[in-house]
């Protein structure tokens, strides 16, 4: 089996991740719910993970690292904290439904800063022209459909300069690209634990630059006599029992990323995508959405096969043991921007464990499918 759907969830994990999950399952109880050994072990695991994440993303205090179920959960907390009905929210034209649906549900006035794929200058211009009309700004770091790396440092600088609170969706970049929380100065950065950070599904992280408004209320293990959620982080945003087993796995995933190095992981993934592009270039009816400079694209490549349905392509590859994703990838806004809303795309996305041979096999199979009349 060849797995090329890491933009959805990384399937290949370091062995230490699975071992840690299994160990925690039978030894660690619930953090902040007692002082006995299994509870304190759970607390130790969770704190170690907060500390590693704080180090990786340059967050000054581990207290500001909040655990969530996934990036969507983290984004919902962030959006719930800053957006009310009628709030004018400026977003990029590459946002996922995990941003646009919570905005829609809250009755926000959404303004889309649209700019063509792989043109960071145009993206910054588009934000610059519209930012004054917004109360809050949200942008993704990397498009989950096209792997387009947005110029987040410049967008963040623009938000700081204009005094606009902002949220960054790091779903595709955490563990793959450097993210400096302190330097960016975001109010919130949301990320999954189960993609580039190589943790298990059911883990997510919210880096908090401001206190935040609880999305859920419940037990926190602190200030139990009071009915309001505690005013301090992380307890304020972590109602209910944490996914300790998942966090134990995430801790090992983060340690792997730290050991291998983000720059090495990024270089590996970019090299694989370049190879894939080169191989697919031999097939004229495969249209690639690629950055010619190579500077603005991560380990994700979307393609369209002329006169073929993207889901047929994914099914064809799936029958041959090659796992890719087709359709809109839960990001219709990105397709609206790129002009692929009707066709969708076939998306191939790599991981730190993907090999050149796997890329070659996938390219050959996709080429064969494209040649079928």
């Amino acid at each position: 089996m060849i797995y090329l759907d890491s933009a959805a969830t990384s399937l290949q994990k370091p062995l230490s991740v699975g071992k840690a999950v299994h160990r925690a399952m039978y030894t660690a109880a619930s953090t902040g719910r007692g002082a006995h050994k299994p509870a304190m072990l759970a607390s130790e695991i969770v704190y170690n993970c907060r500390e590693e994440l704080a180090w990786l993303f340059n967050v000054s205090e581990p207290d500001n690292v909040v655990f969530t179920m996934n990036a969507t959960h983290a984004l919902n907390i962030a959006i719930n904290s800053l957006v009310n009905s009628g709030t004018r929210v400026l977003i990029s034209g590459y946002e996922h439904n995990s941003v646009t649906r919570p905005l829609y549900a809250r009755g926000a006035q959404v303004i889309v800063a649209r700019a063509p794929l792989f043109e960071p200058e145009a993206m910054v211009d588009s934000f610059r022209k519209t930012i004054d009309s917004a109360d809050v700004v949200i942008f993704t770091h990397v498009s989950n459909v096209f792997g387009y790396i947005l110029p987040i440092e410049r967008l963040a600088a623009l938000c700081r300069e204009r005094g606009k609170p902002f949220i960054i969706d790091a779903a595709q970049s955490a563990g793959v690209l450097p993210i400096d929380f302190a330097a960016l100065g975001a109010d919130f950065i949301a990320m999954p634990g189960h993609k580039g950070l190589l943790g298990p599904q059911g883990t997510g992280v919210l880096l908090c630059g401001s206190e935040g408004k609880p999305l859920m209320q419940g037990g926190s293990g602190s200030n139990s006599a009071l009915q309001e959620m505690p005013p301090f982080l992380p307890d304020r945003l972590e109602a209910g029992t944490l996914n300790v087993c998942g966090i134990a796995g995430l801790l090992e995933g983060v340690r792997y990323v730290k050991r291998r190095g983000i720059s090495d992981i990024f270089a590996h993934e970019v090299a694989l995508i370049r190879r894939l592009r080169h191989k697919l270039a031999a097939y004229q009816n495969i249209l690639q959405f690629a950055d010619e400079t190579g500077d603005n694209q991560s380990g994700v490549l979307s393609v369209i096969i002329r006169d073929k349905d993207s889901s047929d392509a994914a099914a064809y590859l799936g029958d041959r043991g090659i796992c890719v994703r087709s359709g809109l990838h839960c990001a219709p806004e990105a397709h609206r921007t790129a002009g692929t809303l009707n066709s969708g795309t076939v998306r191939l996305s790599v991981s730190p464990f993907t090999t050149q041979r796997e890329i070659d096999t996938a390219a050959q199979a996709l080429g064969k499918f494209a040649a079928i009349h």
Partner: protein
Amino acid sequence: MRLKYLIMCRSLTYAQRSARALENAGITAVVAKAPQGVTNAGCAYCVKVSEKRLQDAMRVMRASGLEITKVFELNASGEITEVKL
């Protein structure tokens, strides 16, 4: 060595952070659940340190930017008294 001073922390995470800072400075510190009687708001956590190291612990915590709200002394008979800071 008897750990008889309880440095109150606003949350478990804060207690862990404090204990980590103290351990890094060579001061033995244990994260523990605070006795029920010393908190107005219900469940809370604290860091336990020895009498000998209390002053060092407070100095390290302040230097690390960690807030100290209350400190309690736990005597041999289990009675708890607040220490004036």
